[in-house]
């Protein structure tokens, strides 16, 4: 494309279909403890 550059290939909708296994880390267990940030957590699959 000439006018638009897409940075990622992911589509959240596909992840919804197979998601929800619940094995990934609770976000507060990483570093924050005061501020919820979820999108930086890793998927376990």
């Amino acid at each position, binding site marked *: *494309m*000439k*006018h*638009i*550059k*897409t*940075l*990622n*290939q*992911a*589509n*959240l*909708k596909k*992840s*919804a279909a*197979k*998601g*929800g*296994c*619940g*094995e*990934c*880390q*609770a*976000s*507060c*267990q*990483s*570093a*924050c*403890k*005061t*501020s*919820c*940030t*979820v*999108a*930086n*957590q*890793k*998927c*376990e699959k």
Partner: protein
Amino acid sequence: MIHKYTLNGFNIVIDVNSGGIHIVDNVTYELLDYVAPPLADMLPENIAAKLSVRYSQKELKEAYAEILELAQEGVLFSEDDYEKFADMMVSAPIKSLCLHVAHDCNLRCKYCFASTGDFGHGRKLLDEATGKKAIDFLLEHSQGRRNLELDFFGGEPLMNMDVVKSVVSYARSKEKEYNKNFRFTITTNGVLLNDEITEYINSEMSNIVLSIDGRPEVNDRMRPAVNGKGSYEVILPKFKSLVQKRGEGQYYVRGTFTKYNLDFADDVIHLYEQGFDQISVEPVVTDPAKDYALTEQDLPKIYAEYERLAKYIIERKKNEESINFFHFMLDLDQGPCAIKRLRGCGCGNEYVAVTPDGDIYPCHQFVGMEEWKMGSVYDGSINTKMKDDFAKANVYSKRDCKDCWAKFYCSGGCNANNLQYAGDIRNSHKLACDLEKKRLECAIMIKAALA
């Protein structure tokens, strides 16, 4: 829904529901002010007329064709069809525990949400029997989950190291029988670190959070010892030694910034220059009446500071240096699934805190609020009504989140902050939202700059 913004010379468009991130030129950026679904096959003439002063017909038609193509691919103007998943959300197994091994501390940090360690209920240490009960509780309530997380928290957990070791050893002894994988983490101020403890936690903990605020004067102003002296000189060499010995293991040096250091990028840079490359420096969360509290008036300065930090990180990374700022971490391709993103931290549902008395609270920040006590590891009780309520606290049941572009990144924010500063776990804490959105914009811009 899309969200678009310009930062550091990049026009960035986020397609909220697919997670698609697009960098666009000026003509496309302006076109998107006028375009909304359902999209026509050709650029509508009235829109072309509005922009024809600045752009040629050819440019406008080309840009529109690309917008249309992405929309047809489902990565621009995609539909929000996740609410059906939110409706299905029910109580989950408890798989994550914040274990308060010490309601006592050897520092007197002025912003401490735990009332300098005792959570307002007296200084005490968790005993071994209660620690083991907490592990039993977790094993019994985590059916269906293999990965279990246990964070040793306080107060200061190193004040009760023997119990930490006993709990780790007890949990490990149960892993095989229950088919579980324990991941231990610890959050420490570092004062009691020595070679023996460093070696132990480096070998047993999957992540270590080392509390330090940054520059010596910044750290010492807010993190004095009981005798009032600053802690920087005591902890810095210990943290350096731990990280050096840790090798590739996960850790964060983790600070808090307040109104006293709105130039907090300099604290991140200071920590980096001390040899730490995994850094988290986070906004203080406190009563707005405190003189160090962050307020809405501070936002322009904080925003500018996040931008300055983002540019600093871009330069370091372009120079192939290793630096990771926790709040700018974002994996645009391999991040958590959409289901995980609907309800965030999981507190009170799959994540709970246990106190030295064996009491269970939705998370560490609720500890000490009697009305939020939800059970005890001694009798295995858990308030299922309260648990169900937390399970249903998702981005669709939170009024301000439903139509927010950041909902799949922050996932509804911190329920404890919402309760304390906005009156209900479902009311958004606006200051926290504003900061989160700015950090996300910076994090995505960094991706654009390094792409």
